[in-house]
């Protein structure tokens, strides 16, 4: 019998590097978004999910538009951009620019941020490391999933979508490829990453896996 490839839980930690670029006005923000590195766009959008949804926005640009420029409508529009809708960072960049351009066209002179409240563009440097936990079957996976750190969940669920593409995450990929559980994989892929905090994703996933384990037990597998 072929041995099942275990799931190795990893974790990622990012430290932040300044790009030296900043914006004081909406036009300045727009021009910088057009020219900064993809890593910087990634940090200010995808990595916002690492902040645990403590605030009411979904990316740093929306946060700044709302808090520092006090442009509420723009901040709602920027918050509504789901980064997981885009295959490439440059597609996401184009959408950010489209929304800002449209806003500038209608409201040509939005206010500037007060001094010291400018938007500072940063980039991440990310370290990935194994946490020392492996799961060889669903039951082991369930136990681990309940207790592993949020950063591990972020890495396997959020970061993986960017790494693997096609709306696929590490968890569902393992369920499908290693365990042959396509239905469970589909259930996990159906969880909207944009609408949940890391803890919310954990809750949904634990529930789905628990159901699967219970069904196995009841059917005598």
């Amino acid at each position, binding site marked *: 019998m072929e041995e099942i490839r275990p799931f190795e839980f990893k974790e990622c930690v990012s430290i932040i590097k300044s790009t030296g670029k900043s914006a004081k006005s909406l036009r300045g923000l727009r021009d910088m978004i057009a020219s900064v590195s993809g890593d910087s766009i990634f940090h200010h959008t995808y990595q916002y999910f690492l902040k645990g949804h403590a605030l009411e926005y979904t990316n740093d640009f929306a946060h700044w538009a709302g808090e520092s420029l006090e442009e509420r409508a723009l901040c709602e529009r920027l918050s509504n951009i789901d980064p997981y809708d885009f295959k490439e960072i440059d597609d996401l960049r184009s959408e950010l620019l489209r929304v800002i351009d449209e806003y500038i066209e209608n409201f040509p002179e939005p206010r500037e941020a007060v001094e010291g409240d400018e938007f500072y563009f940063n980039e991440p440097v990310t370290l990935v490391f194994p946490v020392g936990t492996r799961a060889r079957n669903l039951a082991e996976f369930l136990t681990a999933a309940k207790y592993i*750190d949020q950063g591990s969940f972020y890495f396997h669920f959020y970061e993986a979508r960017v790494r693997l593409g096609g709306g696929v995450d590490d968890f569902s990929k393992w369920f499908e490829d290693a365990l042959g559980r396509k239905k469970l994989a589909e259930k996990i892929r159906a969880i909207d990453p944009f609408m949940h905090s890391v803890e919310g994703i954990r809750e949904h996933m634990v529930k789905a896996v628990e159901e699967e384990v219970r069904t196995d037990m009841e059917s005598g597998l």
Partner: protein
Amino acid sequence: MKRYAGIAPQRDLLLLKRLGERLKGRSFLHINSTRAGGGVAEILQRMMPILQELGIDARWEVIEGDERFFDITKKIHNALQGNPEEITEEMWNYHFEVNRRNAERLNLDADAVLIHDPQPAPLVEFRKRGKWIWRCHIDVSKPRKEVCDYLMRYCRKYDSAIFSVSKFAKTMGIPEFIIPPSIDPLSDKNRDMSESAIRETLDKLGIPADRPMLLQVSRFDRFKDPIGVIKAYRMVKKYNDCILVLAGSPATDDPEGEEVLKEVQEYAADDPDIRILLLPLFSDRDINALQRAATVVLQKSLKEGFGLTVSEAMWKGKPVIGGAIGGIPLQIVHGVTGFLVHSSEGTAFRIRQFLNNPEMARRMGEKGREHVRGNFLITRQIRDYLTVWYCLENKGTLIEL
């Protein structure tokens, strides 16, 4: 390290272990300008044994200087924080000269050298080998340009720089990392204390425990706005009976402290409910007790590198009010983990809110503690310093350990 299990986030401990495995046996030298007083010395004191436990050959050296040197560096410090100060060529030369003498005295040979703040910045001219990193702990968001430009002559010669907050970063042409400082939850200043120990300290310091206590712990420095704090307290006092405690320790690299202390004492003179405490160095247990006994903790700074006293108070579950400057907004998420203010009036209003809504104060205090656990504990900061060192030796934006 085991003592941090269950206190610090698991990810930080794990990454520390992994980085420790890779950097084991290598040397890591820290240099600053004071052994005691202020947040930098405090954190270095706690950081060394942890680095050594990870197997890293960590050393901490302090540069020596006379009164003239520290007068000059205090002026440089003030100018970098935006105060009008004139630093003459002769003063810069003396700054360099004292560093040159220190370079002769100190062993600068290490695999990684972390230089803290402007005082020892010129040491980079005497580098031997290894990665040199300049760590800026102060608020340099609006510095006096000519002073900043002069200092940058040295700083650009480093392999990398670290700032506490994004807005402090400069365009220096070297990698600039953003790393907030931290507190040690197990230090005398932050570890749990019994009610009786707290009461004992209050008795010793002559602080009555019969009324709500407002507390600001900081050096006696105009940038910490102790006068503004007294103004806020006076506004509150019309509505709520309370006492104000202003507590600070002298720092050997701050010659202005005495002058500011006198100003504050004069301003407070006639009010027995304002207690000004000049605590001796290493009064960590007393500060811990004061923070735990406080009803509301203030850090109404006008300029602030980071303002670690905010995290200290939040770690103790206290409601905090801080000036919306420097690193304070990173710690205080306005309305969630405390309140950010811009004036004495704003401070007074928020103090009154806390005094009249203990449930809200408790809730914000709890959120504050979790915020500190996730972001501002010493294990995270050591992890970040080692990460910078590792990144400088292993290029890339995604590094597998």
